[in-house]
């Protein structure tokens, strides 16, 4: 298409051979990017002036966070532990539920239409931002940690499920066929032939998703789905920045520790 509008340049070599050089896409891509930038600036009221005039305010806020209010620690423990519990529970249940989900989404195990439908649902679940899922969950399950757990649960199914069915589809099918040939059912053959192949990767993915979920869980409180987000929202609302600083500090330490522990186990798995 592009080559018809901008025909390739013809280069003739001294020995008479002719080479066609396709016109570079770079200029048109550049034009499109510049256009997109201009449109985006219009849509978002992007204003460098404001940024230069008031940008320092941001650092003023950060300045107020330091030093953090150490006494506030006592108020933090419970919601912080709630956040960890939420993500832990959601991740464990979600990872378990991801196995049947991935089973039904693998086109080499179940029939193609079934796999397509399962994949479709998984991708929609994955696409919905966790906060939106949590928001909806608060309407259905009421305010509190249950809503947050459900949101994390659903996202984990989608995320672990997707990576797991990709693994299953790439798994070696030879042993699966062998197991079927000695009279096992599909489910049993899956259990003994495919599952061991994908197990280490599955565990590693689940751990990884747990790491990410702690981060997500930290903001779910904002829509009333429990955890430390509620506290963050309140302190930011009251402009109590030194408390915010304390919350963020604890959050950073927690996330860092969880990442390190999970990384340790993930390295062992692969």
């Amino acid at each position: 298409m592009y080559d018809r509008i901008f025909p390739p340049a013809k280069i003739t070599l001294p020995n008479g051979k002719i080479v066609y050089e396709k016109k570079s896409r770079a200029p048109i891509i550049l034009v499109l990017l510049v256009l997109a930038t201009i449109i985006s600036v219009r849509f978002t009221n992007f204003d460098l002036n404001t940024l230069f005039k008031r940008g320092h305010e941001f650092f003023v806020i950060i300045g107020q966070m330091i030093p953090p209010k150490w006494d506030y620690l006592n108020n933090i423990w419970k919601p912080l532990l709630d956040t960890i519990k939420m993500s832990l529970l959601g991740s464990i249940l979600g990872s378990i539920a991801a196995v049947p989900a991935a089973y039904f989404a693998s086109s080499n195990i179940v029939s193609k239409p079934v796999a397509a439908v399962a994949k479709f649902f998984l991708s929609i679940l994955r696409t919905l931002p966790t906060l939106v899922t949590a928001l909806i969950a608060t309407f259905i399950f009421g305010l509190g940690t249950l809503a947050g757990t459900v949101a994390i649960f659903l996202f984990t199914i989608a995320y672990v499920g997707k990576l797991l069915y990709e693994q299953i589809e790439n798994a070696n099918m030879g042993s699966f066929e062998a197991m079927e040939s000695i009279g096992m059912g599909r489910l049993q053959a899956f259990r003994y032939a495919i599952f061991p192949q994908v197990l280490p990767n599955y565990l590693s993915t689940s751990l990884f998703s747990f790491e990410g979920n702690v981060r997500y869980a930290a903001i779910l409180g904002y829509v009333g789905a429990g955890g430390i987000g509620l506290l963050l929202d309140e302190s930011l609302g009251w402009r109590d920045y030194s408390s915010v600083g304390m919350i963020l500090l604890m959050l950073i330490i927690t996330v860092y520790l969880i990442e390190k522990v999970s990384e340790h186990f993930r390295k062992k798995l692969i």
Partner: protein
Amino acid sequence: MDAIEKQLHASPRNLRYIFTIAILILLLFIWSLTTVNLDNVSESGLGIAAGIIGGILNPDLDLLFSFTSQGVLYLLIETIAIAFLGTIMGSILAIPLAFLSASKIVPKPVASVTRLLLIIIRTIPALVYGLMFIRVTGPGPFAGVLTISLASIGMLAKLFVDVIEELDTNILESLDSIGCNTFEKIRYGIWPQLFSMFLSIIIYRFDMNLREASILGIVGAGGIGAPLIFAMNAYRWSEVGSILIGLVVLILLVEFFSNRIRNKLVRG
């Protein structure tokens, strides 16, 4: 049976290890169960769930296709614009930080400090930045752009560093033999390697930023999040349905194209 299962049966020590871990996970699981509180679940929940499903099946088509500034299409474009500008600004900021945290290029202490800074930036949730920037620029999409820029830096810089540390430096030897000076070596030896990898990373982050941008509206930083929360609070399920449909379709489309472009960039 694969190696792992064999190992499992062969070595009793390993079995004990796995058993310990399993018990540990079980205990953690029970511990985390204490957070679930079913008191707040009311019977209206079922009705609301039905309402949402009904809304998705029966979306407000006028809202979905209207071009006014309240329409879903307009809000989606605003969301894309926030993600787009935020990604560009974030990338520009992340590149120097990436070089500053590459231990191949700068002294170790500098690299370590920059890395710590990046971890901190990465861990603080985007919503927190959003709430802070609203104090700077006032509510609206501009705050969203700044939020996305800052929130992207951590991950972008981390992935950039991996590329920088894996650069193929053999090419520099051959450029030396051609008689290139330092500028030419960077322009023709380093830049082409970095360019396509960086671009691929940036597109990947754009994909993620679109999701981030779609929730920023919840704190008033522009995009489609705010109308979603309003519609839900007012129980206008068909509006909720049309917003959710628009959002999911957009994110799936962008994901599809970004995967294709990135495959092309990385594999050629």
